[in-house]
């Protein structure tokens, strides 16, 4: 019997392209299960990916899907949502695609609070191009373009998204996937910009230089470092440094959503235009046809 998720999956395109041990498939699975639970209509769901390992997940999902250009998935998605508000639009992106080249689009999508769901797969490295440093690579980590160790501090993407105006922000890990599935479901149902960061292991390009224990050790490490928002509140900034704060970190109701706000502008402008046309017609004695 086919699995429930197969209705949303291009099974003919399997096996997928990801490396053995990669965490992207785990989160993609959670996304597919969330779609099943929500019963998303395939013809009203659009999944947009950028460029990179995680963005390729879009190509396995059997709904309307776009594999776009590097960093711009949220900009494409904004056009789609504004043109077709009835669509459920989900953006799949990575830490390079979403936080480096696409960082500007990320903060502006948050600021607009447009009703999109953005799932950012954070594997702390550029995997597809062969292990270069990303804005999420940790201090001191090795990468092909940080052969002496990374000396830049990574973002706290969830705090960035919240500060920029996102109204639903959550973080989870591939090591503890059930909550991630739940965050994705809540994010899709949330009427505003939902940002979900999923920390995933990249044993090939990140792990081989930084985690000698292999992918199982990486998953154990993710678990060991994960703490809740409440636990995090009790720690000093120094103690928090290597922790992964998980859970729904921010959920705000009532902030205006962009597409709906624009729809009310359209209604107002159309009413004004109709009124002006009427005035014009009466001024010209009804002569205008």
């Amino acid at each position, binding site marked *: 019997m086919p699995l429930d998720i197969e209705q949303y999956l291009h099974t003919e395109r399997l096996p997928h392209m990801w490396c053995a041990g990669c965490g992207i498939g785990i989160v993609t699975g959670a996304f597919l299960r969330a779609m099943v639970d929500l019963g998303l209509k395939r013809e009203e769901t659009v999944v947009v990916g950028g460029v990179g390992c995680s963005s390729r997940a879009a190509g396995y999902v059997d709904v309307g899907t776009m594999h776009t250009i590097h960093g711009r998935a949220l900009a494409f998605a904004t056009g789609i949502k504004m*043109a077709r508000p009835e669509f459920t639009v989900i953006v799949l992106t990575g830490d390079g695609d979403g936080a480096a080249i696409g960082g500007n689009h990320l903060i502006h999508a948050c600021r607009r609070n447009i009703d999109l769901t953005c799932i950012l797969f954070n594997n702390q490295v550029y995997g597809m191009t062969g292990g270069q440093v990303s804005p999420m690579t940790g201090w001191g980590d090795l990468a092909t373009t940080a052969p002496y160790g990374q000396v830049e501090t990574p973002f706290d993407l969830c705090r960035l998204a919240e500060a920029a105006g996102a109204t639903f922000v959550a973080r989870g890990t591939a090591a503890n996937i059930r909550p991630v599935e739940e965050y994705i479901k809540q994010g899709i149902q949330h009427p505003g910009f939902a940002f979900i960061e999923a920390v995933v292991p990249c044993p090939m390009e990140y792990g081989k230089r930084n985690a000698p224990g292999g992918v199982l050790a990486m998953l154990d490490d993710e678990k060991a470092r994960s703490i809740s928002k409440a636990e995090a509140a009790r720690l000093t900034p120094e103690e928090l440094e290597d922790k992964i704060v998980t859970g729904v970190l921010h959920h705000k109701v009532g902030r205006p959503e962009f597409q709906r706000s624009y729809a009310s502008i359209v209604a107002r402008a159309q009413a004004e235009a109709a009124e002006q046309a009427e005035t014009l017609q009466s001024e010209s004695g009804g002569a205008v046809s």
Partner: protein
Amino acid sequence: MELWHSHLLREKIDQSSLLVQGNRACALGALDAGVRFFAGYPITPSSEIMEAMAYELPRVGGVFVQMEDEIASICACIGASLSGWLGMTATSGPGFSLMQEAIGYAIMVEAPLVIVDVMREGPSTGRVSAPSQGDVMQARWGTHGDHPAIVLAASNVADMYRLTMAAVRFAQRFRTPVTLLADEVVGHMRESFSPELVGRYRLTSGDFDFTPGYVHPDLAREVHPPHILGSEAHPHVTGCTHDETGFPTNDAKKSERFLHELYDKVTNHRDELCLYDVKNEGKGRVCVVAYGSCARSARAAWRLAELEGLPVEVLHLYTLFPLPIEVIQTVARRVEFMLIPELNLGQYAREVRKLAENWTTVISMGKIDGTLITPREILDQVTRLIGKYESV
């Protein structure tokens, strides 16, 4: 905001012609052609287009979004185009540079799209309000890889209206981005205009069909059936070289065929795409080949030449790409000189020379000081050429 260009109030202005700015006429052309989605980012000298769209689009149930940069603007337009709308954006050189990668994407995914580039002088920031035609080759080859391009050039306010309509039609019919170039002076000039005055240029046949998935019957064999997001087919769209399934392919034969098909659907239709007119046809020894603001000067030069008894024709090109090969070669066969005044260092003259040098002498007349080429300058050059010929 003036109300005169308001769609619903147009009857009032049709009674008489008014002074209309080129950029506003562009917005009006877009609205009349049925454009209902515009995303852009402010930049001189094009901003009046987006300001007009910001005001007008909600009045007709459309969508206007000011995005965070030009890259986001064009990507939002492509997203809308793939959702069954037709996206339009307007910019100037720096923004046009930022858009180039996404233009290639639109070509690959066959998204209809209209991009207006109101050109300013120089590379980089240049001189923001000085006219130029420096982006001609960028409009042709700005994005990487072998690709087709449809590039139109406006020379006055009426052109801004009707060529915007033509751009919409071409984009929709051929499912590819169309670039409309305007020199700064064309975008900012104000001229006597009403849509009715250019009625004879109106392209209001059934060509503006925005039905998702629609391919014009006469192009059904050449234009791939569009992938519309959210349709029953729930397609996959990718900028990777792909086959008919929409998914990437590494097959050499399939990718070669696909890239050729993208090219051919444009170049096989030069007759339809190449808009031009010839003044004093067949009566000149010198033909001035011009577009944009220079075409106005060329037309004026021709009138002055008539007074002075100099045999001059003018080939005014509204379509720069695909190259109007036959049009240029037909003229080249009958004239002794082709003179090409441009507000650049001969970008288009090089294209003309490649096509025409077997039959005629091609002279480039470039200028990049941010001032216009005057009719007198053209006439002086014509006089020199003919004089030189006489003295041989």
